[in-house]
């Protein structure tokens, strides 16, 4: 399914014309950025270099990677996270759905960075296509996904070793630094060798790795690790007696690894210690190794600073793949959508709400189709019929598609939008200045102030906080003016009569309607069909939730019955207290005497 859609997506991406150009040879010194085709430096390289050196030398980091990623810049985006992030529960969605599971268990680098990346989709289509190509290749080629997982595992281990030196067991500083260098080598080796056949942006890892491998710092790193492993080789002769015990132990031959540039003669090693002593250091062999370790690490610093950014970007793709795995485990489908122009029909087949899936509820997929994108879609139907869940699913799908990742659909064809505004939650705050309607009106004003033409707008139960007649006036005003911005609007309402009148009136050109499909016994099927619902079936919801006359009356009677015994018991208690108070003055002198 995905391959077909992806092929189309590629062609659709190429149609964009202004952004999709023929790939040009990359400069050799681009950072290993997996999110942007131009290779952005998103972290503060200088600060990170300083922090890494500090952490390497001292073993104290203070969450260096996390800090660097929280301050990392993102590519250009016209999306405003506060306009939708909270209403779509992006944080919760990332925490529950974008999990990276490897053979070593579940790993995480920076959830907040992941949330920021998803909440700030790129403006340029070529950036989206760059990410889609990587996601597609990782989805289609399990061997590359395994390589990326192993690379991510090495990066996470590097981070935990670099930052967690003071946690757990006490480390020998040199051993810890050697372990860090070994992990760094592992990262470079995996990048250079694991992605040589990649054709997407993953190939940048190969080029970056090869560049590192061809440099002097990497060769010095290899030499130092070899020096640590093999200073010399001893050939031993062990003579064992009849009782099995060792009788003689003799060194037959000693061969020093003379090819290694770090190997010195024994006299020179001794003199080096003497030199360090006069330079103000200790004289242990560890001091000599510490100087060498520092020098090798210093040479690698320019490449090591990319680890934080690279690890976080690996997490984006591996999290997306993890999301796809989890929905497949529930018998659902996720795919890379086909990107089309706004004038083309929108098709979302097998759409489901991933938040429901994340909370263990198997959602019912539905199909959503419209003849074009820039429409205002009025969704009506009974309460608890899935209208709000549908809006959430549409919003998350758009969010993931804009990020170049897998969407919760079997097949999807949609257009990119310059922004997203979602108004689903109408919770009351203690410090809010206005009532429910006032707050809703403030949000409508804010929506119009910020909404660019062609953006996606999702509004749930617009103007439900006032009486229907006055609410309908505001509703009509909003919908009518919204169409002038040619948005992709999704609006739910229970103003059924008004909705029907709008549909029939034809005053809004791009108006489309959907209603919740009802099945047997007027139960919602969680599918949506064209048209306006005739009823909201509030009584059905009331029955389902136990809000009927009989049930409420029985509750009132029960509460009344409970209150009577307590009242009589309270009266008895008061009488007993009065008696006790009357008797007390007479008995008190007796106690004294």
């Amino acid at each position, binding site marked *: 399914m995905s391959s077909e859609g992806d092929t189309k997506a590629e062609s659709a991406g190429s149609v964009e014309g202004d952004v999709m150009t023929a790939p040009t040879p990359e400069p050799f010194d681009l950072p290993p950025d997996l999110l942007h085709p131009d290779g952005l430096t998103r972290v503060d390289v200088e600060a990170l270099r300083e922090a890494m*050196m*500090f952490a*390497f*030398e*001292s073993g104290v980091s203070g969450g260096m990677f996390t800090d660097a990623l929280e301050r990392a810049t993102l590519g250009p985006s016209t999306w405003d996270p506060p306009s939708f992030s909270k209403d779509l529960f992006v944080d919760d969605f990332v925490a529950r759905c974008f999990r990276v599971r490897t053979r070593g268990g579940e790993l995480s680098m920076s959830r907040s960075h992941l949330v920021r990346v998803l909440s700030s989709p790129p403006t340029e289509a070529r950036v989206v296509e760059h990410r889609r190509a990587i996601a597609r290749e990782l989805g289609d080629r399990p061997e590359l996904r395994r390589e990326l997982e192993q690379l991510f595992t090495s990066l996470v281990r590097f981070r935990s070793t670099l930052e967690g030196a003071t946690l757990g067991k006490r480390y020998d500083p040199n051993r810890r630094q050697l372990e860090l260098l070994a992990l760094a080598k592992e990262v470079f080796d995996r990048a250079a060798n694991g992605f040589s056949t990649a054709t997407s942006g993953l190939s940048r890892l190969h080029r970056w790795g090869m560049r590192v491998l061809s440099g*002097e*710092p990497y*060769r*010095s790193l290899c030499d130092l690790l070899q020096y640590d492993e093999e200073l010399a080789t001893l050939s031993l002769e062990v003579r064992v007696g009849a009782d099995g015990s060792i009788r003689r132990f003799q060194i037959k031959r000693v061969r020093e690894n003379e*090819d*290694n*540039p*770090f*190997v*010195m003669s024994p006299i*020179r090693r001794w*003199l*080096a210690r003497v*030199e*360090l*002593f*006069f*330079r*103000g*250091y200790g004289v242990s062999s560890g001091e*000599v190794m*510490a*100087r*060498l370790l*520092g*020098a*090798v690490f*210093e*040479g690698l610093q320019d490449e090591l600073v990319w680890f934080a950014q690279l690890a976080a970007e690996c997490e984006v793709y591996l999290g997306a793949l993890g999301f796809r795995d989890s929905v497949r485990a529930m018998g659902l489908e996720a795919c890379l959508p086909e990107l089309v122009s706004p004038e083309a029909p929108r098709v979302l087949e097998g759409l489901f709400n991933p938040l429901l899936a994340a909370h263990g509820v198997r959602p019912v997929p539905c199909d959503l189709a419209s003849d074009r994108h820039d429409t205002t879609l009025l969704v009506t139907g009974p309460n608890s019929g899935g209208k709000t869940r549908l809006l959430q699913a549409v919003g998350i799908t758009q969010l993931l598609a804009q990020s170049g990742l897998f969407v919760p659909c079997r097949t999807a064809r949609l257009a990119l939008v310059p922004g997203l505004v979602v108004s689903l939650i109408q919770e009351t705050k203690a410090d809010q200045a206005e009532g429910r309607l006032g707050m809703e009106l403030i949000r409508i004003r804010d929506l119009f102030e910020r909404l660019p033409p062609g953006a996606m707008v999702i509004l749930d139960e617009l103007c439900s906080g006032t009486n229907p007649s006055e609410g309908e006036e505001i509703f009509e005003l909003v919908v009518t003016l919204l169409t002038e911005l040619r948005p992709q609007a999704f609006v739910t309402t229970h103003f059924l009569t008004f909705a029907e009148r709008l549909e029939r009136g034809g005053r809004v050109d791009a108006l489309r309607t959907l209603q919740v499909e009802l099945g047997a016994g007027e139960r919602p099927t969680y599918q949506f069909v064209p048209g306006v619902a005739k009823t909201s079936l509030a009584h059905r919801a009331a029955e389902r939730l136990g809000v009927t006359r009989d049930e409420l009356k029985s509750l009132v009677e029960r509460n009344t019955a409970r209150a009577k015994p307590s009242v009589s018991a309270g009266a008895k208690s008061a009488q007993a207290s009065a008696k006790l108070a009357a008797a007390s003055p007479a008995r008190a002198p007796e106690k004294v005497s």
Partner: protein
Amino acid sequence: VGTLLVTSKMHPALAARIERRISQNARRAGGARFRKARSFSLGRLAPLVALGLVVGLFVLMRKHEGGALDARRAATKTSLMTTRVALADVRPDLVSEVEEWIQKAASGALFEKGELVDERLRVPGALDEALSRPGLYVRGAKEHLSKREAIADESGHSIKDGFLLCLFDPPASQHERELLGRVRGVHFGGAMIDELTGSVRRLFELEAGARLLSSSFDAAIDAAKTAPELDRLDVIIRSVNVDAAARGGQAELLLVVIDDPPGARPTEPDNERPHPARVALIDLARREPLLLLRRPVGGAPLAKANRALYAAAADGCALALDVRAATE
């Protein structure tokens, strides 16, 4: 900044980083600022400097001492050379020849044919004439003089005594007063004895001088490693009576008295005891004995009060009179 941590096989960039990391500037600039590193301090050199100073002073002291010792050694050798010049006429084999005669006399080999008095000595005045020739005198116990290696030590105890004095200048008689008149001078420093017996030198004086002529003395000087050792050698050189040794080196006669005391306890107040003695007079030039006599010693006629002081000298004097009597 060169460092021993850098090897020739290292890439220049790596070498530069290593040098930068251990250098003082790098530490200031931040290269190793996070590593616990102490600043370079001359104080770290203090123990080494102190050790160097001690060693240097020790070497200088030894060198100075060595120079001083060499100077002392040279002075000792100069003194030795000066002495050797004075002893140039001493016959190199004289001491050996003399000791051979002494051993023969003490062992009794010379006396196997009995006593001997050369006829030439029987001529009146011949003994005095013979004694006027340069000669050597030694007196000692038979026990020591019969051993070649003990002769030198025994000769050290042999001095010009009452026998030698009375042999050269005999008293008129063995009367107590005559004897005492001669031997008192011996006991009171011998003021006259050396004058009266001037032609004869003690064997010890010759041996002391001859010792300086041997190459072993040069070796001892060269082998001396300390100033006290050289001091001891200097004392030996200075203690040699060069004139006496030189005169002893010209000796033509050897006069030997060999006491053969019995093992009994002393019977006289001065610890002397009567004993036999052998007297030999050897003509060294002609390599033949002139006089070989055995005579008892002791019992000189002295009052009891004088015996305590003069018995030995008086007995020797009486022996000399016996010897002179044998030549008459």
